[in-house]
Structure formats: structure tokens, C-alpha cells
């Protein structure tokens, strides 16, 4: 009996230790390696790389640009996302779920695809503008190759992010608080100004911080829109340095990645500081309040909202699609020039591109599966087995996603540049280093829905299994996992979508043979082959949209708020 007890306990302890080990490997180790490089560059005490990085005027120009587009993009995203959230949540507009589904799509499309789509829409070769006869002459500059262009696209990309957070906050707004204001004699605008918006401050501030971190960390948009105009932000500066200098400049770009990490952290800390200053806690939860009637304004507001969908989603996607059908750059689209050859080329003829489909598919499936398997025991420990250190575990799992992707990419490079001591593992320049970075970065996307799923399940279900004699691993398999699986799997789908056309991390980690779809799109566009880039992009958008609709079918089995695109 005692032997058996020890054996069982040993097994459970091993499970817990294993989960902690994995989180540490994916979070603490790379971050530690990065900090180590800044303190002790290339193993020796030297301040040369630090000085080199900080004395370069390019560093400070890029920092200034990062702040410029970061703040500009954030402001636009917050303005857009908050207004849409208020309209959708508080008024009686119709067609809400279709609108939400479509409005959230830009968030799920990779930034470089968004960038490409908009470039195709407004460029001199734009098939849409050509069809309308409004195209600028060939050779003229695309108006999006500018600071304003980057800010505009960042706002479009992350507006839905703000929308989702503010919308979640508005859903929790108790009806009584609004009704008390109205019955106190306040008009709708007064209630909005004095009750609703103040109570939404934490959501809006949180969304602002998240949008800021996403904007300054974004690589795809400034890469497509900024590099041609020689307008560099920190992530694109890091990319250019690394592409030009190779591993020799790693110490220097480590400093740059730290700089962008600090800017992102400053955003998060500012949010924390502001939301602590006042008490915004909502004491009760109840039904959502009755929508404000828009009356005769309703068709007008609805038209405006759908116009937004047309501008931020339909036109760019149509532009992208039409470009993918054109035989060559600048050729007007008509019955004679329309072709599917671009699709055939990228899928079958171009070796790197067809390899990239397989690579990205395997990488995203592997990352999603891994995250789903790890997320359940990890979330279990964070929610149902709380100790003083479990919230720290949650924070560590969040870190590689919260920090800009370049930071993680540089940390991974540093970690695996030389074979790992003792084990002799050598994954630099292989697909495995990308997989490592994906696992680290996307784990949290499955962890979050699992945690919120477990919060909605009564813990006595597990305790009942415990008194029935089931040990931890058995309970995990027969009780916890089946109960929380829908939420976790939805997270897995989210990971697949995000990883499938990911660029930021793989742009810094890929090598010949381990190209990803994101990298191939980027290379085609840089080489001037927009038509090929567009063809691949259309395929990824189609896959993303198909997966969204597919998971929607299972939505009734999911805890609320797991599928971001479902209202």
C-alpha cells in the first residue's frame, strides 16, 4: 500500500514538475539568455555592443519611428475599436453577429497580408483602381509607403483587438447601473459620459496597452510599407541589421530587441499604474442593459458600420484577389489577362513556396497540438491548484507572447546559435528553431481559453473523481480534459490560424529549406512579384476564414468568449 502510494504520488509530482520545466524552458531560459547577452556580450564583460547600438543614430531614429507609429496606430485602433464596441453593444443595430464576424477578420489575417492587400488596392498597379479607371500612372509612389500609411494599417489591424476587449467589458456592465442613471433623469449621452465610459475605463486602458504593444512589435506592416520608403522602426531595423551582418551583430541587435521590449513593457506598466489609481470594480453582474434605440438614425448608423467593413475588409481582400489573378505586374485585368497561373506557380512550381506550405502547415499543427496538450495541466495548476507560485507560472507563459515577436526571435537565435552544452542539441538554421519559438509564443493562446473554461467548471467535479480514488493523471485524462477540451481546442485553432501565416518570428529564424508562408510572401513582395505574394495571401485568407466558419459550428459547446469572432 505504501509502495503504491509513493509510486502514485511520484507520477503526479512528475507531471507537475514536467509542466513547470516546459514553461521554464520556453520562457525563462530564452529571456535569461537575452539579458545575459546584454550584460556579458559573447561571453565576455564588454560594453562595446551596448555602446555601438546606443550611439548609432539609426537606433534612435528607429526608436522615434516606433514610438510614432506605435502611438499613432494605437490612437486610431482605440478610436475605431471603442466606437464600434459602443455601437454594437449599446444600440439596437441589426445584423450584429455577421458584423462582428467580419469586423474581427483583419485581426486574424497576418499583418503582412493586410499590408499587401492595401498596397495592391492603392498602388499604381491596382486592378481595382484600374477597373475604375482611377489608377495613378505606373511608376508613381504608392501613397501607403509613408508614416500615415503604416499608422492607418496598424489602426485597421488592431482596431478589432480593442473592440473585443471593450465589448467584453460592456457585456459585464450591469443593466441596473444604466437604468439607475436613466431613472435618475439623465439622458443617454449623460449616462454614456458619466456612467458607462467611466466604468469602461479599465477595459479601454487595458485595450490601449495591448494595442500599443502590438503596434510597436508589429513587423509585417512596417516591413511592407516602411522598408521601401526607408522608414525603419525597431523591428525592421533589427531585421535589416541581421540580414546584412549575420550572427556577428547578434549582440548589438540583442540591445535593440531589449529596447523594444522596454518600450512595450512601459506601455503595460503605464496601464497598470493608471488602472490602479481608481476603483472601477463592478460589484454585481446581471443581464445586459436594454439597447438604446437609434430611431431614424438606425439605417444611417448601420450603413456607416457596413461601409467600415467594406473599407477595412472587402476592398483590400478584393484587391488582393484581383492582383492574384493578373498575369504580371501592372497588367490591367480583363477577360484576356485573367489567369490562375499564379496559384499553380506558388503551389506546385516554385520549390520554396510549395515547401513553405508544408512547413507552415506542420509548424502550426505541431504548435497547436503541443499547446493543447500542455495548456490543460498548466491551466489546471493555475486555476484549481493555486499556490503562491502558480500565478507566476501564468505570467511566465504570457511573457513570450506579451513581448514583441522580435524579442523572442533574437532570444531564440542567441540560445541556439551554438549547439546546446551537454545535450549537444543543434537546431540553428533548421525548422526546429522556428518550432521552438512558435511553441513559446503561442502556448498562451490555448492557455487563456482553458483557464477561462476551468473557471466556469465547478471544481467539485474533479473532487468527486478524487474521492472515487482516481489519481491526478487519470483525473486529468477522464475528467478535466474532456470537460475543458472544447475551449482548449478552440485555442488550438486560434494558434493554427496565427502560426500558419506568421512572419515576425520566422523572418529572423528561417533558413533555406525552412521557409514559412509568411517568409515566402515577404520574399515575393520584396522581389517585386506581388502577384505571387497575392496568390499565397488569398490562400491563407481563405483557409483562415474557412476555419473561422468551421469552428463556429461547434460554438454552442464552448464557454462564452472563447471564439473572438463569435458574438
Amino acid at each position: 500500500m505504501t509502495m503504491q502510494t509513493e509510486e502514485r504520488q511520484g507520477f503526479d509530482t512528475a507531471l507537475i514538475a514536467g509542466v513547470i520545466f516546459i514553461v521554464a524552458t520556453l520562457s525563462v531560459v530564452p529571456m535569461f539568455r537575452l539579458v545575459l547577452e546584454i550584460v556579458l556580450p559573447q561571453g565576455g564583460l564588454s560594453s562595446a555592443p551596448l555602446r555601438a547600438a546606443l550611439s548609432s543614430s539609426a537606433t534612435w531614429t528607429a526608436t522615434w519611428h516606433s514610438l510614432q507609429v506605435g502611438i499613432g496606430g494605437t490612437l486610431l485602433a482605440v478610436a475605431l475599436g471603442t466606437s464600434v464596441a459602443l455601437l454594437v453593444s449599446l444600440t439596437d443595430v441589426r445584423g450584429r453577429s455577421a458584423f462582428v464576424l467580419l469586423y474581427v477578420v483583419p485581426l486574424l489575417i497576418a499583418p503582412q497580408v493586410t499590408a499587401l492587400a492595401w498596397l495592391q488596392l492603392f498602388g499604381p498597379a491596382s486592378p481595382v483602381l484600374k477597373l475604375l479607371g482611377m489608377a495613378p500612372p505606373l511608376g508613381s509612389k504608392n501613397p501607403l509607403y509613408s508614416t500615415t500609411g503604416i499608422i492607418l494599417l496598424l489602426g485597421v489591424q488592431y482596431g478589432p483587438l480593442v473592440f473585443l476587449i471593450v465589448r467584453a467589458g460592456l457585456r459585464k456592465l450591469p443593466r441596473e447601473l444604466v437604468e439607475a442613471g436613466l431613472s435618475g433623469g439623465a439622458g443617454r449621452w449623460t449616462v454614456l459620459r458619466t456612467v458607462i465610459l467611466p466604468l469602461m475605463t479599465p477595459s479601454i486602458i487595458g485595450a490601449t496597452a495591448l494595442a500599443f504593444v502590438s503596434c510597436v512589435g508589429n513587423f509585417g506592416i512596417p516591413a511592407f510599407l516602411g522598408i521601401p520608403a526607408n522608414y525603419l522602426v525597431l523591428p525592421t531595423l533589427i531585421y535589416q541589421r541581421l540580414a546584412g551582418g549575420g550572427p556577428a551583430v547578434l549582440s548589438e541587435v540583442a540591445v535593440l530587441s531589449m529596447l523594444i521590449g522596454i518600450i512595450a513593457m512601459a506601455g503595460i506598466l503605464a496601464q497598470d499604474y493608471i488602472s490602479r489609481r481608481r476603483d472601477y470594480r463592478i460589484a454585481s453582474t446581471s443581464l445586459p442593459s436594454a439597447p438604446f434605440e437609434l430611431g431614424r438614425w438606425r439605417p444611417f448608423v448601420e450603413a456607416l458600420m457596413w461601409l467600415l467593413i467594406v473599407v477595412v475588409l472587402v476592398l483590400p481582400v478584393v484587391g488582393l484577389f484581383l492582383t492574384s489573378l493578373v498575369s504580371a505586374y501592372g497588367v490591367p485585368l480583363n477577360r484576356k489577362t485573367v489567369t490562375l497561373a499564379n496559384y499553380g506557380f506558388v503551389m506546385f512550381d516554385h520549390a520554396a513556396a510549395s515547401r513553405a506550405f508544408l512547413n507552415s502547415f506542420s509548424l502550426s499543427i505541431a504548435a497547436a497540438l503541443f499547446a493543447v496538450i500542455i495548456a490543460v495541466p498548466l491551466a489546471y495548476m493555475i486555476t484549481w491548484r493555486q499556490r503562491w507560485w502558480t500565478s507566476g507560472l501564468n505570467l511566465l507563459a504570457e511573457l513570450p507572447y506579451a513581448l514583441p515577436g522580435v524579442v523572442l526571435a533574437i532570444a531564440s537565435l542567441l540560445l541556439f546559435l551554438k549547439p546546446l552544452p551537454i545535450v549537444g542539441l543543434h537546431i540553428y538554421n533548421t525548422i526546429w528553431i522556428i518550432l521552438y519559438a512558435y511553441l513559446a509564443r503561442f502556448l498562451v493562446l490555448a492557455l487563456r481559453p482553458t483557464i477561462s473554461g476551468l473557471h466556469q467548471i465547478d471544481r467539485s467535479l474533479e473532487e468527486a473523481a478524487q474521492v472515487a480514488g482516481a489519481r491526478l493523471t487519470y483525473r486529468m485524462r477522464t475528467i478535466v480534459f474532456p470537460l475543458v477540451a472544447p475551449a482548449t481546442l478552440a485555442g488550438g485553432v486560434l494558434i493554427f490560424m496565427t502560426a500558419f501565416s506568421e512572419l515576425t518570428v520566422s523572418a529572423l529564424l528561417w533558413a533555406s529549406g525552412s521557409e514559412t508562408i509568411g517568409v515566402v510572401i515577404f520574399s515575393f513582395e520584396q522581389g517585386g512579384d506581388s502577384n505571387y505574394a497575392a496568390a499565397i495571401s488569398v490562400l491563407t485568407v481563405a483557409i483562415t476564414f474557412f476555419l473561422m466558419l468551421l469552428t463556429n459550428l461547434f460554438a454552442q459547446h464552448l464557454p462564452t468568449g472563447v471564439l473572438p469572432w463569435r458574438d
Partner: protein
Amino acid sequence: MAGLKIDNVTKTFTTFNALSNVSLEVANGEFVAVLGPSGCGKTTLLRLVAGFEKVNDGTITVGGKIMSSPALNVPPELRRVGIVFQNYALWPHMTVAENVGYSLKVAKVAKGEREHRIDEALALVDLKGYGDRRPANLSGGQRQRVALARCLVSAPSLVLFDEPLANLDVHLRASMEDEFASFHKRTGTTIIYITHDQAEAMALADRIAVMDQGHLVQFATPRQLYEEPATEMVASFIAQGMVLPAEILSPPENKRCRVQVLGQEAEFRCRPDQMMTAAAKVCVRAAEIETVETGGIAVTVKRVIYRGGGARIEAAPAHRPDLELHFDLPDPRRLEEGETTAIRVTSGWVIPQEILE
């Protein structure tokens, strides 16, 4: 089957003492209710016995084996203790039979025997033929019975009930009470039954442990609790006893002594070692107050609650308006709010002086 011994158990959470030096001995096959207002520590006690929480001090012994002590905590899965949860805690992704047979599957019982025992357990709770249903398709009472079957299928040494009737409506409660009583009679299992409903505890338990603010205040039979409450808290918590100041006029004789209460003398029940004092507290039940035509204690009627066939009268003595009295007035006599009348206290119980430890 096994007895349970809780010896001097203390449980502290970071901010407060959930249990302080609780000792409780439950005989093999006994039905014990743990009764107390919310926050008294009864749920903590249950979770300690089940093994979900660790004790800070003291020991818990089940069937002669130490299960909890500061040095040792046998995990819940090895305690062979059954629990019937307040919300049933049936697994929604399993059928009724899978729910009931879970512990057998864990114990690797062969399939044939497992099915046999599942059928047996379902028959015991009158749910024969319900094996293929899902918990979601059952009524509240049926779910409770599945939970009961799940718990008894593994023949646990001890069964813990965590407020099992709190989620059921009033009609169902009475029939489930019968169910639990007959379950206990049939199986002879030792049962610890947590509840905040004293009527439920009185109806079911051999003995009741009354808890208050993390302390065990009295552990006695239902009759003893009612007739001889150990403290003011028990007196007022059980059947809304009135606690009144009194003076003990005579030493106890044959467990009775003369008492002056509200300026009137009467003979009260008391402990044989009751001392004479001017600062005693007595417990008086509604049935121990009657109205009188002449003499008696003048009271003002504060509130009349009609109860069918009679009324519950709430009143305050004219010379002590801060005290609250209540008694039943059978029809056809009537009293109106604000009216003055006279009453007499016929008997009562002298609450033992709390000895400062």
C-alpha cells in the same frame, strides 16, 4: 465501515482561524449532522476529513488509521471516503452508469462485476434502467440519487454529505430526507452530514455537532440540544430559543432549581452542578410561555403572525422593552399589535455558565 475521530484539529487560512481545537468522535455506523450558520467552519471540517485541505494541528483518524496530521496527509483518492456534493458534481460527459462505475473502473474492477455492481447500486436508489441516460436529462432528485449511488457503489468506510438538499425545492427535500434515512438504515455506513438547516439535522441525525465561529459548541442528541443547550448560541440557534437574564435562587435539587426570570419565580431544569448566581442566562421555548388572566408579567404585543389555527405573538416585557419574547396563541383567542397582556414562564433551562478555559 469505520468510525471517525477528529482530535484537537485546528485549521488556519492566511487571514483567519477556520477551525480551532475541534474534537469529535463518531462511532461506527453513526449518523452525525454538523450544523451551524454559514461561515462556522463546517465545510472546512468536511474538506479536512475528505483530505482536500491539510490540518495545521491535531489528527483525523478514520477506522483506526491516521489520515491527517501536521506531518501526514493521506490524499483524498486513497481515503476511501465517499462524498455527496451539494451540486451533485455529476460528470456531464458521462452516462449515469459511467458516473456510478467510475470508482470501480479506477480500481480496475473487471467489466462483468462492475456492471453487476452498478446495477445493484442503481437499484438501491430506485434508478434501475437509467444507466444510459445523461445527467442533464435527469431531474434534481434523480441527480441526487445518482450521486448517492456513485458514492455507495465503492462501499466507502465513511460518507460525507455536503448540504445535499440545499439545491432542492421544499417538496423534494422531505422525500430525499426519507431516502437518506433509509440509505443509512440499509447500509449502516458512518455518515457525516453537513447542513445549516436544523430541522433537517434533527430529523436525520443520531447526534448533532453544532459549530460556531470555528468552534464545536455542543455535540449531543437532537433532544438534548433542544432541551439542554450548552450555550446561548445553541439555545437561540436551535428552534429559536429565547435567551433571558435570570437569577438562580436555590441550589439544584433533582436537576431542578428555583429561578427568578422577568420578576417572576419558576422552577427550571438545570445541571446538577449549577451554582447560585444573580447573573445567569436561561433558555425558554415558545411552548413554555402561556398567557394568564391575572398577575403574571405585563407585555406589549409587537407583532402578530397568523399561522393557521393560531398565531405566533412577538412581545416585549413592559419593564424590559429591550427583550424579545415570542409564544404561540391558539385560536380563538386573539391579540392585536400594540395591545397589552400578561404572560407566565412555566419552565425553561438554565444555560450552564461558560467556563473560561
